[in-house]
């Protein structure tokens, strides 16, 4: 978990997001989606502000955030690596690919490298089963990934 000290501009963003749903608590999940898109993650301070605007308890907001795996309270790495763990990918060796990433990046699933460059997650089926196993880095999709390719893929991110 990491928190964010909110600046004026952040508060404005939160205002806009909440206003766009009329501060309706029924739209909490939509609001969290939008907020996460804006901030990249949902730090404590943002959750508190959202709760205030929606007039619901921050415990409830946190309860919702921690229920859904799509929401995260940790900022992602510059390049977010997601390995599909759908059955098709699993059967075709996704686990070994994850292990390889873990070893190269020296982080656990859900973690971020110290330099903030990469983060590693597993996700549910992305539906590209024909390309199994599938790895997403940012928006880019890598299909039929072999563990031996992992290093090469990582090396291609030079920035």
């Amino acid at each position, binding site marked *: 978990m990491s928190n964010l000290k909110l600046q004026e501009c952040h508060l404005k963003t939160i205002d806009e997001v909440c206003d766009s749903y009329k501060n309706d608590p029924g739209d909490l999940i939509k609001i969290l989606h939008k907020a996460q898109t804006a901030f990249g993650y949902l730090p404590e301070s943002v959750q508190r502000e959202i709760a205030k605007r929606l007039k619901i308890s921050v415990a409830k907001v946190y309860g919702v955030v921690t229920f859904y795996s799509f929401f995260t309270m940790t900022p992602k790495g510059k390049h977010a690596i997601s390995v599909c763990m759908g059955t098709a990918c699993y059967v075709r060796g996704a686990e070994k690919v994850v292990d390889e990433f873990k070893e190269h990046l020296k982080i656990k699933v859900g973690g971020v490298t110290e330099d903030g460059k990469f983060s590693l997650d597993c996700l549910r089926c992305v539906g590209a*089963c024909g390309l199994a196993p599938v790895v997403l880095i940012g928006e880019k999709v890598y299909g039929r990934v072999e563990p031996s390719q992992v290093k090469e893929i990582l090396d291609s991110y030079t920035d």
Partner: protein
Amino acid sequence: MAQYKMHLLVCGGTGCRASQSEQIVENLKSEIKNLGLENDAQVVTTGCFGFCEKGPIVKIIPDNTFYTQVKPEDCAEIVTEHVLKGRKVNRLLYEDPETLKHIEDSKHMGFYQKQLRIALRNCGFIDPENIDEYIARDGYAAIGKIITEMTPEAAIDIMKKSGLRGRGGGGFPTGLKWEIASKNKADQKYVVCNADEGDPGAFMDRSILEGDPHSVIEAMAICGYCIGATKGIVYIRAEYPLAIKRLKVAARQARAYGLLGEKILGTDFDFDIELRYGAGAFVCGEETALIHSMEGHRGEPTVKPPFPAEKGYLGKPTNVNNVETFANVPAIFLKGAEWFASIGTEKSKGTKVFALAGKINNVGLIEVPMGITLREVIFEIGGGIKDGKKFKAVQTGGPSGGCLTEKHLDTPIDFDNLIAAGSMMGSGGMIVMDEDDCMVSVAKFYLEFTVEESCGKCAPCRIGNKRLHEILEKICGGKGVEEDIEYLKNLSRVIKDTSLCGLGQTSPNPVLSTIEHFYDEYLAHVKERICPAGSCKALKLYTIISDKCTGCTACVRACPVDAITGEKRQPHVIDADKCIRCGACYDKCKFTAIHVQ
């Protein structure tokens, strides 16, 4: 619509887009323009063709030429050769894995021959972002006919006669569901489309929404008319950006045409839809959990009754159907309940979409009539097992389903037969396993998923599945005992018997069905400490075949725990107690002298 002599349909589904199909569209268009053929040939981005294994796909109409694994750089050749000169680009044609011959057109591909596309009728056929193409195929004719010429009761009657059952997993008769919702009086009711597809390995709902969003919208409107609802909500996974986009485009177009909104087609019927996003919780596939999630809460299920048809979204009567179920609806009204009921088996009518995956040659999305056998699906449509391996089992129904084996290959697939065989239809995932797959590990994999996705509300699911997983892990780790299998069975039954919602009530199925069909494999793990499939790392036994060993000591140097000993140029031995089964020696040995069991 302009008249083109040739249509180049390019798959714009998530899978093919991941392999640059958008670039292919661009390239095809510019090549056609370069050759001045823009009045003859049209490039259309369509939804998924289902043949994801060999994507990206470019299909050429009218001769149904089916190009596979097309790369952007192939486009020039396709246009100059095929479009201009009428010569097929042979190297891009699909090659039959058995005869190794190129197949001319999709009609002759085994993958398509046994399929019957109702829910997927427009996928890979029309441009999902162009409502005109949908209308040209009788789109919105069904809702038009119903709201001008039929009473809700009559329409529900047709649904009941069609015999359509929910495609989301439960198989509840759709017409009956609508009837119940229609009979509950309320000032406001809701139609909800469950597009929170969560089974790992199933992606038909996404494909339908990406390839034919209008049919879902139309069906929701039909349902709205039948039950007396004016509001529809699509609850869709946020991880499906393309489906969301296409759905939004479709709704915008339908609104512009007045096919959504107030006074549709000049009648008094109002209907519109909005989108809600799931946020990564499998349990939200359960209707009460889904409704809580739509209301902005944690997606925890509640005890039924009351069913959503009585008390659903915001406490109002709500009808929830999944995407595939809806996609069947317009076709039923266009072609008649009798037509639909003529397809399939006695109690399971129509077709079912399956996502074929795993160790099979043709991975992809298929739609087949109910009653087809597993053999037809796996060996004819699916093209058999990859790399010529032996078929071992097929897992249907995802984490809620079970494994079917060789003896089920000729069982006609329908809701009831699958349940009788200890599995279930589920949403239609079909994962094929071969001889290298350890069934204990497969059960463990599904339990891992369930443990991850259990909402935690009820004790048997929250703790029980965790314990099942731990025991399976113990067995795979070579520490299981025979009593564990009995305990697994009892625990599984209790979890099924006591869990609050469908997730827990079905989560032990993979365990029970693998124990039933592969009891020997479990026994081998716990008694002989062997994994017959050779996949459980902890149960691998590494030995050195002394005849082959040259004593080069490469393995000794590779072994991280000094488990290998031996004199130079003499056969070495592995101390099984020290060995950590890392496989380093196996990789290093140049003389294939390391034997793994």
